[in-house]
């Protein structure tokens, strides 16, 4: 296993209160595999990603029983060893490329610097590598682009530069936090193709965070559905999307407008009433409790056990929907 995470918890300081943003997450990622973590805003996806990279905001507390990359316990690494790993063996791509690019340096400066820091090669070699990678992510006029500053590029081009930067050192694992959320659908499709191609060429493990189930359907091998700091369901793409077992997953899928609805606007969408709650205290019960249409009295008393379904996914629910019921969504 490339990545193994057990019982990951992140607690943040929020106006004097302790906010439990990630509440015991388990993840596994193998080489060459794409794991999508999907969930709505505020459910803890970005904090999970930042915890893996040991890049949490100031004041955040992190705990885990295991946080291993290729057998190396990340939480025990020195700062120095961590920064040797980041950008070289593990890369990350964020939603907003401007936060990851330095506005006062050219694209070329930044690409060359990343490569030279990790490999110690000459500037000329770094230049050649940068052009090669920029071209591989579909950038035309790579040499000219290298002389430009980040603000001179469109959002789609900036995101390609960020991908190029992440790929410079041929990492074994890439963590993508909503890299296409701010882009148009056509640009999103182009960027996703580039990422998938880079991944299969290098057998990279890809942890892909998104709120978009349509994207999940196109790129995921496995899916982890996150809600209020917990993974509530986890399994193969086919199992989770075609026979969702958790009421939250089912609700989420049903709330996406579908082509079968026809253009008449006559068919109502299923929706999930209410909002995602914030947790300031430990609460072992099901996080979906307050909004669940299937809630039973046991749900208000006891933590849901994790069960394995017939389709093979794992679900934390007292009464997981069986495949039959899921089909009638």
């Amino acid at each position, binding site marked *: 296993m490339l990545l193994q995470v057990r019982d990951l918890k992140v607690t943040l300081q929020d106006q004097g209160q302790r906010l439990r943003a990630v509440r015991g997450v388990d993840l596994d990622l193998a080489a060459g595999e794409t794991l999508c973590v999907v969930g*709505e*805003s505020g459910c803890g996806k970005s904090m999970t990603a930042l915890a893996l990279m040991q890049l949490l905001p100031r004041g955040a507390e992190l705990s885990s029983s295991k946080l291993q990359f290729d057998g190396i316990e990340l939480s025990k690494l020195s700062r120095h060893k961590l920064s040797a790993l980041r950008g070289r063996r593990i890369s990350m791509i964020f939603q907003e490329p401007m936060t990851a690019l330095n506005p006062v340096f050219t694209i070329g400066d930044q690409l060359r610097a990343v490569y030279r820091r990790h490999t110690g090669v000459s500037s000329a070699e770094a230049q050649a590598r940068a052009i090669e990678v920029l071209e591989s992510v579909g950038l*035309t006029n790579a040499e000219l682009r290298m002389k430009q500053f980040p603000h001179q590029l*469109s959002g*789609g*081009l900036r995101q390609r530069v960020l991908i190029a930067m992440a790929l410079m050192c041929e990492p074994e694992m890439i963590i993508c936090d909503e890299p296409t959320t701010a882009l*148009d*659908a*056509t*640009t*999103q*499709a*182009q960027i*996703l*193709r580039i990422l*998938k191609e880079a991944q299969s060429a290098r057998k990279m493990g890809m942890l892909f965070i998104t*709120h*978009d*189930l*349509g*994207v*999940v*359907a*196109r*790129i995921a091998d496995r899916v982890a559905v996150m809600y209020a700091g917990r993974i509530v369901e986890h399994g193969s*793409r*086919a199992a989770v*999307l075609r026979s969702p077992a958790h009421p939250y997953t089912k*609700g*989420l*899928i*049903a*709330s*996406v*407008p*579908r*082509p079968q*609805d*026809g*253009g*008449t*606007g*006559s*068919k*109502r*969408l*299923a*929706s*999930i*009433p209410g*909002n995602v709650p914030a947790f300031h205290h430990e609460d072992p019960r099901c996080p979906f409790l307050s909004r669940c249409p299937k809630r039973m009295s046991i749900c208000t008393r006891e933590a849901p056990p994790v069960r394995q379904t017939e389709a093979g996914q794992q679900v934390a629910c007292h009464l997981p929907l069986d495949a039959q019921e899921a089909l009638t969504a």
Partner: protein
Amino acid sequence: MSKPLLEARSLSHIYQLRRGLLGKTIPLRALNEVSLNIGDGEILGVVGESGCGKSTLAKILLGLEKPTEGEVLLNGRPLSDYPRHERAMAVQPVFQDPYGSLNPSMSVEDLIALPLHIHKIGTRPERRQKAAKMADQVGLPRRTLSANPSQLSGGQRQRVAIARALVAGPKLVICDEPTSALDVSVQAQILNLLLDLRAEHDVAMLFISHDLSVIQHMADRMMVMYLGRVVEEGGTQSIFANPDHPYTLVLRNAMFTPSDESGVPDLGLRGNFPNPMDIPSGCVFHPRCPMARPECARTSPALERRGNDDRRSACLFPLTAPENVPA
């Protein structure tokens, strides 16, 4: 056909961008000869990539921006002839960002009642009653009436914006990306609400979104825009079943839904993102079009009717023309 509620005739809009110290201006053509009709109670969808002119069109139809060319008729009368209040009674906006468009220092009740107050409709108690009724209709709990916007969730703020838009009984609501900032489960609530309100009040909508699946769900008819122009328009079902314009096909192929696990398609798009300060010759889509032929760089295709439905498209080699359909 009866008179449309709203009719826009050949709207063009140019923004003058100031460049350099000498105050030299560069024209940016945001909208080019866009015409449209909206009937009573009809939802017309508008889709296209960011920067293609959707919001500019919305602002012109709301009377917030004067078009460089063309005119807008509301009930057959030029929008520019309407007194501001009368226009605001008939056409109301719902924008993407409910955070920015709601005054943070006002209570929800006052925000919803404000249009009534401005138009001097009813007494104060009557206005309060109307605001409370509107809040019920959009699914805002009564206790939120005394709250201010910062205390509400994103979905609740969008409900306030919708209640405010509908309280004075407009005939047309211009929705500019009304759910783009919301999570999908909340988006579903808002889309349901808009469809319910349409059924109840027979209000027409111009519904703008960059998300084709939302347009497909909401719109009776739709328009596809590219670089300030309409490249295809017609019945939503018919366009989805058989896109006529290559750009519409690209957009449809880029639409991802949870039930389609077919991998990431190659859209066949060439070239770079379009630039409204440097509009291509011939067909505006030709530098990126997967089907372009040499003629496309020279001849500008007109928006023309095809077949016998009300579909129109602007392409020299439309996909549904018999000679272009693969045997």
